[in-house]
Structures are given as structure tokens and as C-alpha cells.
């Protein structure tokens, strides 16, 4: 079991005492810092070299770091115990959005609290895997069919509410984060196969009854962007042009013509990877992926070493969801997947996603800093 030896070595490096006192995982902190710095660096170029977005993003990140360290102070059991309440509040907020939400750009995703606006779907990204983890951690593994059904119901209600906003991207992220818990909890292979074919079967139903016209358009656009060069196809043509023209080494920082001359839409938000690809080339893309994979890998190690089933499931789901962010974003910008509103985690500009992500990493830190009780299960 050399793998566990490796894990222990990593653990001992951090120093148990310090971790236990401040609940800070310095390895995780360092990787996140590197990622955030990289993100700000690219954002500067992507936002027409104005410091405005960089400053705001840095503020979000600092808030995120602070939030993460606060969340890390709570014991894992706290989240396990309050998961149901947390989940219920998220559902109420999501339902409230449908009735009292603030509309922007044709979608109703925000709740106005008077002093601030927030996006309940962001809470759902944490609350759903948390609830599913709490639910399944008390059930026998591998989960029985009725437990699978229960877990799916927990996932489906918020996913449905979010899809109504409509926000397909977040809905997918929420659904997958819950599904990952099921998967990590040892969902039987026959159920996995069933889920796979079920998804295939559901696709036409989704197409006919759930997806909005603009969402269908995005799928069609993916298949042949040239059909609508200056409409729906514009984004994807410009982003692939930006990526492709970057080549191996890129055009240089702030030298990307596609992004600097505004051919690339949403260059500082969802399409920021195209700026990176154009200015730093394939090497830049590989570099960023390496940081992401290091982060995800490290989070997986935290999950494997977690002291309770809840913690394991929660940590694993957060790590895999983070990967889904990265995968979906990089795929949609490069034309592998339809354009759904998924940002590139910790690089795309945007406060809500950053706060949510750091909340997740806060929980991971809490998990990683819990005292090791090998052999015990409580």
C-alpha cells in the first residue's frame, strides 16, 4: 500500500499540531494562491489591461480566502449535523428566486436582500453534495436502490428549480456534485450503467420539454458554428480562432489580437481560457491544467484520508465538481461542448463563483485538519 505511505508523508510534512490548531492546510493554501495569482495575471490582459476588474477580483479572492479560513474552523461534524437545515434553506431560497427573483439578461437568478444580492444556486452547489453526503453516510454501502432514489430526489429538486431560472450550467454543476457523492459512495455498476443509458434516453425528453430555444441553439451552434457566423456562431468561431492562432507558445501577454481587439466575446468571464490560450499558447494551457490537476489530486488525497464517510464523500464531491468546472469550461470554449454558463474556476471574473469555491475549499481544509483516528469510524 505504498499510496498510503505517500499520503502519510504528505501529512507529516504539514505538521499535525499547526494544522490542528489553526485548521490551515498550507499545501492547499499554496496551490490556491498560485492559481489565484495566475488567474489575476490572465484577467489583467483579458479585461483590456484595466486594473478595475483585477482589483475587484482580488477583493473577491481575499474575501474568499478569509471565508475559507473561517469555514475551516468549523468541525466536519458541524456540517454533517446542519446539512439538512442548510439544504432546506437553499431550497427555500431557490423557490423564492422563482417568485421574487431579480431578472437580468433574460434569466432570473438573483435574490435581492436589500443590502446585497446573492445567487441561491451558488449555495445549492455546496448544500446539495453536503445533503447527499450526510444522507448516504448513514446508509449501508453500496447504497440500495431506495437510497439511490432518495439521493437522486435530493439532487433533482434543486436542479429542477435552477433549470427553471433558467441556468443550465449551474444546474449541471449541482446535479453532478450530487451524483458524484452517489458515485463515490459506491453506487453499483449496474446502476451506473443504468444512469448512463437513462441519461441517453432522457436526452430527447430534455430536448423536447426542458431545454429553452436558446439552449437548443447553443447545441446546434456547437455542431456547425459557421451556419450563423455573426450570431450564435460568433462566440465559438472567435474563441477557437483565438485558441488556434495562439499556437504552441502564444502571442505574448497582452499581445493577443483576438482578445485585445475585442473579437473575443466575454473574454474576462466565461471565455478567459481563450485569452490564455492565445497569449500563452498550448504551453500556457498545459501549465494551467497542471495547477488544476495538482489541486484536484491534492483534494482527492484529503478525501482518501478523511476520517468519516461524510467527510470522504463531501471532499471527493467538491474535488470532482471543481474538475467539472474546469472540464466543461475548457470544452465549451474550445467547441467540444455547447456553450453553457460555466466559468473557469478561480480565473474567470466573477464574485459568486469565487465565494462558493472557497467555501468548498474551507470544508476541505476542515477535513484535512481533523485529527487522524485510523481505525475508528466516529
Amino acid at each position, binding site marked *: 500500500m505504498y499510496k498510503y505511505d505517500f499520503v502519510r508523508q504528505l501529512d507529516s510534512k504539514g505538521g499535525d499540531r499547526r494544522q490542528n490548531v489553526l485548521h490551515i492546510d498550507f499545501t492547499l493554501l499554496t496551490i490556491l494562491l498560485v492559481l489565484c495569482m495566475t488567474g489575476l495575471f490572465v484577467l489583467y490582459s483579458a479585461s483590456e489591461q484595466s486594473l478595475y476588474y483585477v482589483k475587484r477580483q482580488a477583493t473577491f479572492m481575499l474575501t474568499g480566502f478569509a471565508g475559507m479560513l473561517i469555514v475551516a474552523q468549523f468541525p466536519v461534524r458541524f456540517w454533517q449535523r446542519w446539512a439538512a437545515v442548510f439544504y432546506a434553506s437553499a431550497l427555500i431560497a431557490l423557490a423564492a428566486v422563482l417568485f421574487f427573483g431579480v431578472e437580468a439578461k433574460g434569466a432570473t437568478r438573483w435574490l435581492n436582500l436589500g443590502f446585497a444580492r446573492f445567487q441561491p444556486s451558488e449555495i445549492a452547489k455546496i448544500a446539495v453534495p453536503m445533503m447527499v453526503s450526510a444522507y448516504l453516510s*448513514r446508509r449501508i454501502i453500496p447504497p440500495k436502490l431506495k437510497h439511490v432514489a432518495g439521493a437522486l430526489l435530493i439532487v433533482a429538486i434543486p436542479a429542477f428549480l435552477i433549470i427553471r431560472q433558467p441556468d443550465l450550467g449551474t444546474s449541471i454543476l449541482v446535479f453532478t456534485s450530487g451524483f458524484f457523492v452517489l458515485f463515490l459512495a459506491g453506487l453499483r455498476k449496474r446502476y451506473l450503467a443504468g444512469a448512463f443509458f437513462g441519461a441517453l434516453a432522457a436526452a430527447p425528453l430534455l430536448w423536447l420539454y426542458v431545454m429553452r430555444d436558446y439552449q437548443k441553439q447553443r447545441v446546434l451552434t456547437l455542431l456547425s458554428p459557421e451556419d450563423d457566423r455573426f450570431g450564435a456562431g460568433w462566440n465559438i468561431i472567435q474563441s477557437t480562432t483565438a485558441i488556434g492562432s495562439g499556437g504552441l507558445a502564444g502571442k505574448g501577454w497582452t499581445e493577443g489580437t483576438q482578445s485585445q481587439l475585442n473579437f473575443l466575446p466575454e473574454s474576462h468571464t466565461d471565455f478567459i481560457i481563450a485569452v490564455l490560450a492565445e497569449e500563452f499558447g498550448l504551453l500556457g494551457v498545459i501549465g494551467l491544467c497542471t495547477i488544476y490537476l495538482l489541486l484536484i489530486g491534492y483534494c482527492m488525497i484529503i478525501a482518501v484520508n478523511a476520517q468519516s464517510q461524510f467527510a470522504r464523500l463531501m471532499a471527493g464531491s467538491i474535488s470532482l465538481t471543481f474538475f467539472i468546472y474546469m472540464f466543461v469550461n475548457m470544452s465549451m470554449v474550445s467547441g467540444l461542448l455547447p456553450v453553457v454558463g460555466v466559468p473557469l474556476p478561480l480565473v474567470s471574473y466573477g464574485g459568486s463563483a469565487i465565494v462558493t469555491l472557497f467555501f468548498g475549499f474551507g470544508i476541505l481544509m476542515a477535513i484535512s485538519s481533523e485529527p487522524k483516528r485510523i481505525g475508528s469510524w466516529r
Partner: protein
Amino acid sequence: MLRDNAISDPRQEQRLFSMRVMLSVCIVLGLTSIVLFRYYDLQVNRHLDYVTNSNKNRIHIRSVAPTRGLIFDRHGQLLADNRPAFTLNIIPESAGDTDQLIARLDTLLSISEKDIARFKKREKRSKGFAPVPLKYNLTEQERAILAVNSHVLQGTEVSAQLMRFYPQRELLTHTLGYVGRINDREIKNIDPESYRGTDFIGKIGLEKYYEETLLGKVGTEQVETDARGRVMRVLGKNDPVPGSNLTIHIDSQLQRVALDALKDERGALVAIDVKTGGILSMVSTPSYDPNLFISGISQKQYDGLLNSPDRPLFNRALRGQYPPGSTVKPLFGLIGLQHKIYDIDYSIYDPGYFFMEGIKRPWRDHNADQGGHGYGVDLAEAIIESCDVFFYTTGVKTGIDLLSKESALFGLGDVTGIDLPGEKRGIMPTRAWKKDNRRQDWFNGDTINMSIGQGFMLTTPLQLAVMSARIASRGKTVIPKLLKSVDGKDIAPEFAPDPIQYDDKYWNYIHQAMVDVVHSKKGTARGISEGISYKLAGKTGTAQVISIHEKDKYDSSKIDKRKWDHALFVAFAPADNPQIALGLIVENGEHGSRTAAPIARKVIDTYLANYTPNKLHNDASRLAKYALAPIEDN
């Protein structure tokens, strides 16, 4: 705490979880590989395609209009110039509320409804950051007002373009022509590449004839634009080649004298340099200011020009076709002599009438009332006193075929080949011509009419000038040209292919007769010989506008002035070494001797007085004066 009879085995839980994590890691790595392969495919395999696409996005070729060639007269006087014209533009993006801005501008400059309407139309199609023109041809005062108020006029901009300007205004309009905006019909006939960036094209006159020479070659600029088409920077440049500068034979001072002499009349004058065929002066009156046509003439002004009974738009020198009248007598006499139809000694009796065998109706001499020219009228006297009966008699003897064939050598009945568009041929009738056009045979009566330059015969003032130049030069068939040099390189004179080889004694005889028209006591143009210091050879002519019955007397007091006879004159000087030849007509001027001949004298006096002038200093100062003044709308 465990519900649902679950038996939790932490080791099993952990083992199963670890297996699932291992599986997840595999999936993560697998999906990451797919994504990275996609980026590899785009960035390495298809890199060059996307570089091309990216460059197509941002790099555009912009045309840079060449500067149109200038036109100078023979002394370097500037005739066609390019001057900055100032336009007031609004940049909608930075102006904000354009209606409000226009209202504010209106209080300062008064903007017309038409300007506003045009602006609105263009604004709709504009890209926001691109300037949209509001008012053209700002005056110096208007520019000053704009400059002073610039702090409250955000979003406005004054731009300068080069516009054609004719500093001599109406002096040479019919000859120079003018440029104007390219219209729909022209756009089909031009090479669009050559006219990228140019809105103007030569419409008539020299501007049209030498369009290709004057135009120059369009330049290009490689510019980088952003997604909205805004130019960010210039990447490369291929400078335009300016059009060639033309120098023409026209002598502005001579032109001015001729124009002034004719300015109260409807008429035309063409003066030719006998040695080179260069057109020294070419006038058609009334004239007008060609600058009106450049930036768009108003409908009212245009209608005024178009509908005027004086027809100012009509180039009479090139396109006016008139019966030449007696001005052809020296030529017809010369043809008869050279072809031995009669000799120098030949004379006739002129009772004032000419009877043709078999025709009852007589042909009148113009002085039939005085009883004709009497006995012993020879060719010289017939020219000097303009005896019609002599030419009726000899015309029939010479015959239509010979007159026609030989007259063609002197430039009658066909285009002269001058470098101007739209020249008229005139009519030098032949038997075939009458058959084709009148469906009738040629009668001797037609020859008789023609022998004094009436009947079917028509000539342009240019043809008359060419005819007198060829008589003056003893048969040198030089072709009239306006162009003297291109970019300082002289153009060699051209000659018609068929030479005129007549005996010197006949040239001498005709020259002397034409000198005597002016200098002898009985000459019809003797009135202009007073104080003359050189020998001027000429011939008067009168062309009937309406036909008068043989019994009726022509009495101008009883006829509408528009129906008075046209007055003509052809001349060359000095007779012993001819330099300048001319032809001119004054419409309804009645008598060549009284109206037309004095104008010829004035023009020739001016030319010979300045024959070897050094006016360069004078011209240079005039050039400098015009170079500074901008074009203003008025």
C-alpha cells in the same frame, strides 16, 4: 445512529471509496487528455489556419486616394488646383445626444434642413465611432466659430479633404471641364480598383479626356482594426502615386482678352498656334463657374444654367455647328486655282445676281442693291470684297466633288482630332451625303449655295480655326491639341496623314488677298486695320440664320435679334510668318466685319505683343496668392 438496519464497516467503506477515487482519477485524467488533445489539435495541427483567420479578422486594406494632377497654362498659370475643403463631422459615439448637438450647432452656424436630413440618413448606417459629415465646405469664419466654441461641442470634428478648385473660375470652363461625384452610370464603366478612395471623376472637357493621366494610382494602407472596425494602427503603407500634372497650350491672358471681348455675346473663338497646332485660346460664351459642379450644384442653379436661352452649358467652340459663310471663300478659291479650274487672270462680270441655266430664281449677291461688283472681278477682288457671284460662278465650275474632297484636307466635315471629348463633325456635303441624308440627288443649286458657305455646309468654330491655320502654314496639316506637356515632358505635334501640296504661287496669292481684306481700302475688314503694326490676313463671313426670299431685303430692324445673321471671322498673323490663326463666331452678330473682326484684332494684338514674354515672375506670385485661400461655399 445508523438507521435502516445498516451495518457500517469503516474499512469496507474506506476501501470502496478509495477504489472509486482511483476510478475518478482515471476519469479525470482521461477527460483532461481529451480536452488537452482538443487544444493541441487547434493550437498545433490547425495553428496556421487559425492564424489566417485571426489576421483576416484584424487586418484590413484601406485605400488612399491619389492627388489629382494639376493643370497649368503655357506660362505656368494654375488652372485646376486641389485645395483643402473643410467638413464638419459629428462622431455619434462621443456626441451623445446628436439632436441636441445639432441644435446647438445650428445656433452657431445655421445648418440647413437638407444637411440635417442627409446626416440622419448616414448616422443610421454609421458605426458610432466613425465621423458622419454634417456640413461641407466650411468658411474660414465658420471654422473660427467652431474652434472658439469647441469646449461645448464635444463629439464634433472638422476634417480636411483635397477638392478640385478652378481658380480662374469661368475663364476656361468649356475647355477644362470639371470633376464631379461619380454617378451610377459612370460606376459601371470604371475600374473600381482605380477609384477606391476617390469620389470624383472628370465629367467633361480636359478633365474627362485626360482622366487616366490626371487620376494617379490609388495607394493602400494595411490597418489593424478591432471587432467594431475601428482602426487601431497602420501596419503597412503603399503610397498612392499622384496624377500627372498637365500643361496646356492655352494662354490665360489671351483667353481672358477673348472672353472679355465675347462676354456680352453668344459666341465662340478658337485660336491656334500655327506651328504646333496648340490651342492658344478656346472660348465659348456665355461661360459659367465650374466650381459650382464639384460639391454638388443646387437644383435651382442647375436649372438656371440648363434652361437659359443663352445655353451657357453648350460648348459652342467644339460643338456649335454654323454655316461658315464667306469665311470659306479663300479656301474654295485656292482649290479652284490649284486644280486649274481657272487662273489668276480669270475674272467675271457681277451684276449683283447670278443666274443658273434652267433655273428661274437668281442667286443674290450680298450687295445686289448696289448693283453688284461690276466688271473685272477676279479672285482677289472676290475675296477682298466678298463677291458672291464670283464664287457662284466658279463653284459650279469646280464642282462639289473636288470642293468636298479638298476641303476635308483643311479640316472641314470631320472631327479635327482635338484632345477634347464630344467634338462635332460639322457637315462638308458630298453627293453621297445628300443621298443618305436627304434622299435626293445633288443639284448644281446645292453647289452654288455651298460655294459661299451656306446651304448644307456646317462648320464648328474649331474647324474654322484649323482651316485658317492650314492656310496660314501653307498646308501643314497640324492637328489641334490642348496638351503641351505632361509632367514637364513636351508632347510632339501631330499631323494628319494626308498632306496638302499646293503651289507656292497660289498660297502667296491667297495670303495676299486675305491681307488685303484687312489692309486694302476696299477690304471688308478694313475697319480693323487702323494703327496695326503687322500684317493681318483675314476673311469676314456672315451666316444666315433664316432664309430671306430673293425679293426681300434683309433688314435687321424688322427681325428678332435671335434671328439676326451670325457674324464670323477667320484670320492669321503675321501674314509673312504666321504664328497665330483663329476662327470665331458671334451669334446674331450680323456682320463679320463689324462684330467679329474687331475681336480677332484684339486677340491677335495681345498675342503678338506678348509673343516672347517672360511672365514667370508674375505667374509665380499669382500662384502663391491662390495657394493659400481655401474653397468656400457660396
